[in-house]
C-alpha cells in the first residue's frame, strides 16, 4: 500500500514549485494587463497558465519533510477529495458554460478549474498536516459515501444532458 502512496519528488521541490507558480501567475497577470501584444496572443496566455498548473502539480507530487505513514494517508485522502471536487466543479462549469459570465468551455477555462482545485488541494494538505482532522483517518465512511456521491453526480449529469438533448429536438421542430 505504501508503495502507491509515495510521492514523486523530494520535499525541497515543493517550495520551489509553489514559488515558481506564484511568479508565473504574477508575470501572467501583469503582462496581460500591461501588454497589448501579450493580451492578444491567446496561446501565450494558455502557455503561462499551463506552467502554473505544472508547478502546482509538481508541488502536490512532492513529499513532506518527514514523509511517514500518516502524511501518506493524508495525501491520499486529500487527493481523493480533490478528484471528486474537480469532477463536480468541471461538470458544473461544462453545464453552465456560456451562461452567467462564464466563457464557453475552452482550454483556459479547464486550466483555471485545475488551478483552483490544485490551490485548494495544497491548502487542504497544509491544514490537514497541521491539525490532523479525525475524519481523514476514518476508514469506514469514505468508500460508500464516495460511491454514492459519484453515482449521484453522474445520474444528475445524465438527466440534465437528456433534458437538454430533448429540448434541442423540441426547439428545432
Amino acid at each position: 500500500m505504501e508503495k502507491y502512496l509515495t510521492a514523486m519528488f523530494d520535499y525541497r521541490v515543493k517550495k520551489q514549485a509553489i514559488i515558481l507558480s506564484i511568479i508565473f501567475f504574477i508575470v501572467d497577470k501583469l503582462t496581460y494587463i500591461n501588454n497589448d501584444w501579450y493580451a492578444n496572443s491567446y496561446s501565450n496566455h494558455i502557455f503561462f497558465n499551463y506552467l502554473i498548473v505544472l508547478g502546482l502539480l509538481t508541488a502536490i507530487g512532492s513529499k513532506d519533510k518527514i514523509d511517514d505513514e500518516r502524511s501518506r494517508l493524508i495525501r491520499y485522502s486529500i487527493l481523493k477529495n480533490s478528484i471528486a471536487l474537480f469532477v463536480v466543479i468541471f461538470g458544473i462549469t461544462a453545464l453552465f458554460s456560456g451562461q452567467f459570465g462564464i466563457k464557453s468551455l475552452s482550454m483556459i477555462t479547464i486550466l483555471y478549474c485545475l488551478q483552483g482545485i490544485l490551490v485548494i488541494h495544497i491548502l487542504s494538505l497544509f491544514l490537514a498536516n497541521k491539525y490532523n482532522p479525525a475524519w481523514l483517518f476514518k476508514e469506514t465512511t469514505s468508500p460508500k459515501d464516495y460511491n454514492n456521491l459519484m453515482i449521484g453526480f453522474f445520474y444528475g449529469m445524465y438527466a440534465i444532458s437528456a433534458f437538454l438533448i430533448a429540448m434541442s429536438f423540441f426547439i428545432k421542430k
Partner: protein
Amino acid sequence: MKNLIKVERARKNITQGDLADALQVSRQTINAIENAKFVPSTVLSFKMARYFGCKVDELFELEEED
C-alpha cells in the same frame, strides 16, 4: 483503539518530539496516535513497543466499537 503511549512516554520522561525522532516519524504523527485519531501500522506499533520495551498489546488495547 486505546493506547498507553502517553503513560509510557511520561515513564521514560521523553517528549513527543523525542519519540518521533527515535521512530523516524513526525511529531504530529505521535500526537495523532496518542489522541487516538490515527491508528498506526503494524510495523510502527512494533517499533514503538520495542522502543518502550513492552509488548504491542500492552501498548494498544481494542475498544468495544473496534
